[in-house]
């Protein structure tokens, strides 16, 4: 049975080779050459130049903050949801995937309307006699946009990992005299690590590399590393520099992939 099936892997091997591996090789090739085709490291060392380094630092900072906020919001939620009956599983996943059916640019843009000086949120805050928010066109608005867009990608893996924990394991811990806090840190948290790693990856990488959210909510003045790469490819057409900077991003992605490979061997923390 096994040997007969080998030819079945051909279409996918061909596809993934041509459209996954070769393109990444192209990025490396362009990143390590200049316009004449000669070898150079300049495209990569360009990350150290003042403007690029500033964009990368800001991207790292904002995406780290967003990831932490997503985690802190999502973990309690996932714990609550994990207690819901199993037959509701699909429904819960649906609630968090459904917003994707409305275009993500429009959804992000809607935050402008909500956050504006005379926007909905400030009306509500004034009504409650609370101080108004002035975060539109600031890094804080970008963080909000990141948290908004990527929160579902933190919730779903955490929920999947937590829902898989056998309740008997937790009951056993209680029977053996562990308190709630003790059980959480010794049982629940360690068992949910695949979900945590997968969630962090699914939030941190898109947040680190986004260029849309910053241009929509940052007022166009705040440049993230994604904006810089986008400009190199679509406006200045310097593919070599753009590829070099992409390779720097790929280092962060690689670190993340290695971490997920170590902590999530069986794909337990997957989103689906």
């Amino acid at each position, binding site marked *: 049975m096994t040997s007969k099936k080998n030819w079945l*892997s051909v279409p996918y091997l061909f596809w993934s080779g041509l459209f996954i591996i070769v393109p990444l090789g192209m990025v490396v090739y362009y990143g390590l050459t200049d316009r004449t085709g000669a070898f150079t490291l300049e495209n990569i060392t360009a990350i150290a130049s003042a403007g690029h380094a500033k964009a990368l630092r800001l991207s790292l900072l904002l995406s780290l903050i967003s990831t932490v906020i997503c985690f802190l919001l999502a973990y309690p939620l996932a714990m609550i949801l994990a207690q819901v009956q199993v037959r509701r599983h699909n429904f819960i996943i649906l609630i968090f*995937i459904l917003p994707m*059916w409305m275009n993500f*640019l*429009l959804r992000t843009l809607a935050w402008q309307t909500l956050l504006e000086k005379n926007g909905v949120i400030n009306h509500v805050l004034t009504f409650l006699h609370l101080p108004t928010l002035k975060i539109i066109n600031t890094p804080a608005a970008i963080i909000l946009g990141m948290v908004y867009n990527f929160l579902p990608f933190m919730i779903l893996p955490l929920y999947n990992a937590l829902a898989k924990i056998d309740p008997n394991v937790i009951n056993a811990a209680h029977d053996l005299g562990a308190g709630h806090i003790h059980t959480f840190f010794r049982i629940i948290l360690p068992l949910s690590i695949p979900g945590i790693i997968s969630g962090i990856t699914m939030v941190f*990488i898109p947040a680190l590399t986004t260029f849309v959210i910053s241009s929509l909510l940052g007022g166009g003045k705040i440049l993230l590393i994604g904006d810089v790469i986008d400009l190199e490819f679509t406006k200045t057409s310097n593919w070599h520099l753009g590829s070099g900077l992409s390779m720097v991003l790929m280092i962060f992605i690689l670190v993340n992939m290695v971490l997920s*490979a170590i902590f999530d061997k069986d794909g337990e923390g997957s989103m689906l």
Partner: protein
Amino acid sequence: MKNAAKKIYIALIVLFLYAPIGTLMVLSFNASKTRAKWGGFSLQWYIALFQNEEILRALFNTLVIALVSSLFATVIGTIACIAMTGMKRQAKSILMGITNIPMLNADIVTGVSLMLLYISLGIRFGMGTILLSHITFNIPYVILSVMPRMKQLNPSTFEAALDLGSSPLNAFFKVVFPDLLPGILSGFLMAFTMSLDDFIITHFTKGVGVDTLSTKIYTEIKKGIKPEMYALSSLIFVIVLTLLILINLSPDKKEKELRYGGKNEKK
């Protein structure tokens, strides 16, 4: 008390996720053309939408790309899953690693890498390049939802069918396929959703003059979004919501139909 706090917390998060969607729906009924002002209730944008050829064309492109790319991805992904069950452990884990690349990689890197590939191969940018790119990032979603089903499968059933004289293809469609179907369907839906919502990869791999809804919206941002766009998104959202509620009204029944319906039909 504790339960109430939990419910409030869930409600707040859901409110956070759905607030922009509500805002867009309200804006789609706004008689005033600007986002900033409420000019009274009006259906004018819904009427204007069906006369706006550019938006309708972008919608058509988006739907064709989503449908065709998720169909292709479903076929390639499902075949890959079947192939992987027969593979050695090491080969399988390498292939799964490659499958994970588009999922874990940044969209911007996937986008520019595919753009460079098409440039080097001299492929003309247009619907074709968008389709190839969408199939590529959709396949992992299919594989990741079919694979768990594949693992639950009992290989003896397939072999039993062969022993009883069935051809491999017939055995596959009669015995294995019905069990995989729920995974295949959810993979297809996931791929369709991802393709529909994608902006970044389309942005880098589309040609001049070809637009999906996402890229159309992106170019409109600078000039100001046409309110017809709000009307269209609200329509799409409400249609999908209605469909999903109808399907989910009886989840148990659906599961049964998916499992046994296929076999009964072929009688």
